[in-house]
């Protein structure tokens, strides 16, 4: 039987979503100092340290799956509370409109930042050198169209369409049949379903940032989205894994350890083939699944509260994620030729980017019409249980 949880009980999901968004900034910043990403990251720095790889790819394994799980959960909530038409209007305003507004702006900003990088950086990254000829006037080759780090908004729109299709075409009985499976059988089924999309792409999962939906991404992230959607209607579906949370954490860590060992030293180099590829894919799927579940279960236990700091982080995280990348690259270009240790550069880049994003939030978002898109709760910060999913 479907249960209807109270919105106030979902503080942990708002907090987790904010953490996942802000972790995006940490992840992107870390790639500049990652030996594995050296060949393809725009702001790759001469100073590198393997620890960045270990931490960055660990977060990459479950950050976006977690985000899509939460998006699926709030989709179910909003659809049930507000109805299909209000849901569509809400998503157009909070997902489609920011995408349409910010994709051209960020593309222009990124082009400007790349020009700055090309003119100031004395030790440019391999990618920066590669795209240099494309920016010369009259060049036949152009930079490919990309949704950049906003790909998740773009794919979310497709997942909303597919959710509508599933709501019309599939019966609730399917959910019940799946949930009737034993906990571990269900986990095993999910694991098997995650394998095909991961098999199709190189590891670790790339950003599906072209201007069209990537089927593997809709499949892979769609599964997490669907899990979130089902968990809203069947709260017990998540709770039954609570006793296994430590095991999930350990299994995730073990999977990640094997996955990391199998990753090539340079991610542009040839990927493992045959059984090694299968093992790597299995570990990637298992790590993503176990850590996503573990993150949800631990967050429910320790992050299910609301205070001013958490509400502030939840409110700013969407804006920070949206605008951080050009600023981060600009700062990292400025830091490239300095002979500081990688860790110091990383901290400087993260703190300055975060400060810049927060400053822009208070200058450009709160007092302007953008506030309606990104800060609908401003002025009501004391309301403890305001459903922040409206910001998603």
């Amino acid at each position, binding site marked *: 039987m479907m249960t209807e949880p109270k919105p106030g009980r979902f503080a942990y999901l708002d907090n987790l979503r904010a953490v996942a968004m802000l972790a995006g900034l940490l992840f992107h910043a870390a790639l500049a100092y990652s030996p594995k990403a050296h060949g393809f990251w725009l702001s790759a720095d001469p100073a590198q340290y393997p620890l960045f790889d270990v931490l960055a790819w660990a977060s990459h394994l479950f950050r976006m799956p977690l985000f899509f799980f939460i998006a699926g959960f709030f989709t179910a909530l909003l659809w049930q509370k507000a109805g299909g038409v209000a849901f569509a209007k809400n998503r157009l305003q909070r997902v489609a409109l920011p995408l349409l507004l910010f994709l051209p702006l960020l593309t222009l900003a990124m082009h400007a930042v790349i020009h700055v990088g090309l003119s100031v950086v004395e030790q440019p990254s391999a990618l920066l050198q590669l795209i240099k000829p494309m920016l010369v006037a009259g060049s036949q080759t152009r930079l490919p169209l990309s949704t950049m780090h906003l790909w998740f908004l773009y794919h979310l729109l497709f997942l909303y369409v*597919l959710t509508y299709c599933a709501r*019309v*075409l599939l019966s609730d009985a399917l959910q019940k049949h799946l949930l009737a499976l034993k906990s571990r059988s269900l986990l095993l089924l999910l694991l098997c379903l995650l394998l095909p999309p991961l098999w199709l792409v190189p590891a670790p999962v790339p950003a599906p940032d072209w*201007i069209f*939906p*990537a089927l593997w991404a809709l499949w892979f992230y769609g599964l997490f989205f669907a899990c979130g959607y089902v968990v809203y209607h069947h709260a017990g579906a998540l709770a039954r894994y609570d006793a296994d949370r430590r095991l999930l954490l350990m299994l995730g860590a073990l999977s990640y350890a094997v996955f990391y060992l199998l990753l090539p030293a340079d991610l542009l180099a040839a990927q493992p083939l045959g059984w090694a590829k299968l093992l790597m894919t299995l570990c990637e799927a298992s790590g993503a699944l176990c850590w996503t579940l573990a993150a949800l279960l631990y967050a429910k236990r320790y992050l299910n509260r609301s205070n001013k700091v958490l509400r502030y982080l939840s409110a700013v995280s969407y804006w920070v994620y949206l605008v951080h990348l050009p600023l981060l690259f600009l700062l990292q270009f400025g830091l490239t030729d300095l002979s500081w240790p990688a860790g110091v550069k990383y901290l400087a880049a993260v703190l300055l980017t975060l400060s810049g994003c927060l400053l822009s939030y208070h200058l450009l978002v709160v007092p302007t019409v953008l506030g309606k898109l990104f800060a609908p709760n401003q002025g009501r910060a004391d309301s403890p249980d305001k459903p922040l999913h409206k910001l998603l």
Partner: protein
Amino acid sequence: MSNIFSNARMIKLLIGKDWQLVKKSLAAYLAGGVLVIGLMGMATPLLFNTGAILMITLMIVIGARSAIELVINEKKDQTLAFVLSLPVTPQDYAWAKLGANLLLYLVPWLLLVLGMLAVIVSSPVYNGVIPLVVLVSVFILLSYCCYLATALLTYSEGYTTAVMIITNLLLNGFIIWLLRMPAIHLTLEAPTASWNSTSLGLLTGGITLIIIVLLGTAALQQRKTSFL
């Protein structure tokens, strides 16, 4: 004389009723559309061509199914008797049918065409194919308008099916005819879409024919005095 505004609320309800009748099919087509655009987006020649054929098939199937389900079957299944009991005139009914069918077809048609264009623009596929894709899509829309008009004016499954068969046969001929035109053929592998006088002329002709068919259908429907 009745017009579309005289009983707007009832017309809206009838359109809503039609939407409820076909929403399952449309949801399936929509999911199919996402799959096809994803396939085309993989940007290999095989998958692009497979996706393009599936896309054309999808557009034809959506049109054919909605015309049959919403117009012909209503008469055949005798659900028209229910409509007779409503406070609507034959003109209201005609407007609702035309509106519902156009809306239910144009939305997925537009999404599929825009999706296909987005794939072409953002993938290594030559942008020179854009005029061909647009012209074929407009031809499919024109075909749809023709058999919708036939269905609305005759309520005959036989006539409507005949028009469907003819327009589908003409589609193949139309594509071959386009590909044999130097103005179209020679620009297919161009890096940008080449809208020359031939392609623009064909596009204008296609859109004009669509408008004529729709206005003609609406005018003939206005003259109806009974549901039968």
